[in-house]
């Protein structure tokens, strides 16, 4: 039902868009018609360019998210294990969390140059802190009863974390991952728009930027379509599935 509604509205929006562009009020340099956009989209797909750039962006974001999530968990674990690390991690979050990755970009260029490393670093930065913040909050707010029961039943050490801390904090962890993904995705596209290879691959953001420089507005829209599709897929397929299979099934969603 939900899907149908989205489809219905998308259809109306496209119709609306087509009528406006057919009226000739805006030059096609400002607002290309849906027909032109779809043509540009298909052409770009045929050339393989758009898919290549998309793959490039996806691989880079997966890499960054993977590393970011790994370190977020490492720090979260350290902070529940050692009091001193808890204070340290809290300070770290307070400093780094409010900093948008893009604001750090000039500094990152100085430190890591303008290559792929820098983009990965921006993604790690964007994803790490929200995931860490949510995970530690989740760990800290676990109902005491679960850890008491765990102790009572003889669960110790790392087992306590994998079998009790992590599932018990799942609502927090998932929302951390959601925010981390959303921030990383935005940061990735913006970072790619700022630097990329002229001839070689530079990802979706770079593709948009290139279309802008060569005034291919329809091509820009084509890349936006891909971004929207990926956003929807991740949101609807990945996170909604993940939630349905965990916290919703377990009755842990906040109502």
């Amino acid at each position, binding site marked *: 039902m939900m899907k149908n509604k989205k489809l219905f509205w998308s259809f*109306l929006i496209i119709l*609306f868009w087509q*009528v*406006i562009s057919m*009226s000739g*009020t*805006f*030059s*096609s*340099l*400002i607002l290309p018609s849906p027909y032109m956009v779809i043509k540009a989209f298909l052409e770009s797909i045929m050339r393989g360019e758009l898919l290549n750039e998309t793959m490039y962006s996806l691989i880079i974001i997966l890499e960054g998210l993977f590393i970011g999530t790994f370190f977020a968990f490492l720090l979260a674990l350290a902070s529940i294990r050692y009091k001193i690390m808890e204070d340290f991690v809290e300070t770290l979050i307070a400093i780094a969390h409010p900093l948008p990755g893009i604001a750090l970009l*000039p500094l990152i*260029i*100085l430190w890591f*140059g*303008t*290559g792929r490393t820098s983009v990965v670093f921006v993604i790690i930065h964007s994803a790490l802190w929200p995931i860490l913040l949510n995970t530690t909050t989740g760990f800290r707010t676990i109902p005491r009863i679960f850890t008491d029961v765990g102790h009572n039943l003889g669960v110790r050490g790392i087992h306590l974390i994998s079998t009790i801390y992590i599932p018990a904090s799942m609502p927090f962890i998932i929302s951390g991952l959601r925010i981390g993904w959303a921030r990383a995705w935005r940061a990735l596209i913006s970072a790619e728009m700022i*630097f*990329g*290879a*002229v*001839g*070689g691959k530079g990802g979706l953001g770079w593709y948009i*930027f*290139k279309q*802008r*420089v*060569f*005034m*291919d507005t329809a091509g820009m829209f084509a890349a936006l379509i891909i971004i929207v599709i990926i956003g929807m897929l991740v949101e609807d397929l990945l996170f909604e599935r993940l939630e349905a299979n965990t916290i919703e099934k377990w009755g842990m969603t906040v109502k």
Partner: protein
Amino acid sequence: MKKLSLILSIMITLLSIILSGCTIGNQQNLEVSKISVAEQFGLAYAPLQVMKELKLLEKNLPGVEVTWKQLGNTAAIREAMVAKEVDIGFMAIPPFLIGWDKGMDWRIFSGLSKSPVGLVVNNPHIKSIKDFTGKDRIAVPQPGSVQHILLSMACEREFGEPERLDNQLITLAHPDGMNALFSKNDITAHFTAPPYLTKELEVEGMHQILSGSEAMGKDFTFIVGVSTSNFHDKNTKAYKAFIKSLNEAMAYMKQNREATQILLSKAYEMSEEEIEKYMTLEGVSYDNSVAGVPEFAEFMKRNGYISKTPQSINEILWEDVNDEK
């Protein structure tokens, strides 16, 4: 069903508001009460600073409100002109040609400046573009920028392959490119213009392996002034006044060198010595002639950056232009 018709009627209302709103906006453009000019930051735009400081346009066009916009890059200027927010813009020839190719209704009305541009490397072993290895990265301000096109021209001459180095190019704004060049761990070369060019060459170990005129094979105009047809046709008085003011500014710069330096040092917050050094740099000149358009157009067409070349030069130059053959 009721819901659907409600939605439809809302949409139709919205539609009519958008459509009518825009036509009103267009009509306002007919009046000659305002003119809007867009430029970028840099010494290549010096005559515009002189024009502003001496209020030449206000003198030649009394009663008209002039807005000066300093935008971050050429694409932004172009977009502002598409959106009819800007009447007159200044940029390099290749971005102008890309816009013209994409159907923008605009032409060049004047040259603004010539300037040296150069490819600076931080590796003493590289003596020409032939010495670049696959690992060397070269920074340019944008794809499709004059620097990018010039490098492609040089590649065509050297290797017969204009896109030879394209996969090694990265895009960096001038200041970032300069920092990256100095840090040496990221890029080997930077294709840039003054003042960055001069600053880079002053640093030990940096040297220039290619200049703009070497790449092109002749001198060319670095920055040109572009006006939309709408402005040219409908605001002829303002258009003429702008050209007159620009020419007066350039004449003033030639006749009053010292006064110009003082004026510019304030406008750019640079010392008078720096300004002087730049203004007397070989290859720097401010005049209204336009050179290099056919060469750029022909090259860009041949390599697919644009889809057509002008049948006659008058398709892209307004009648007033001092066309330097």
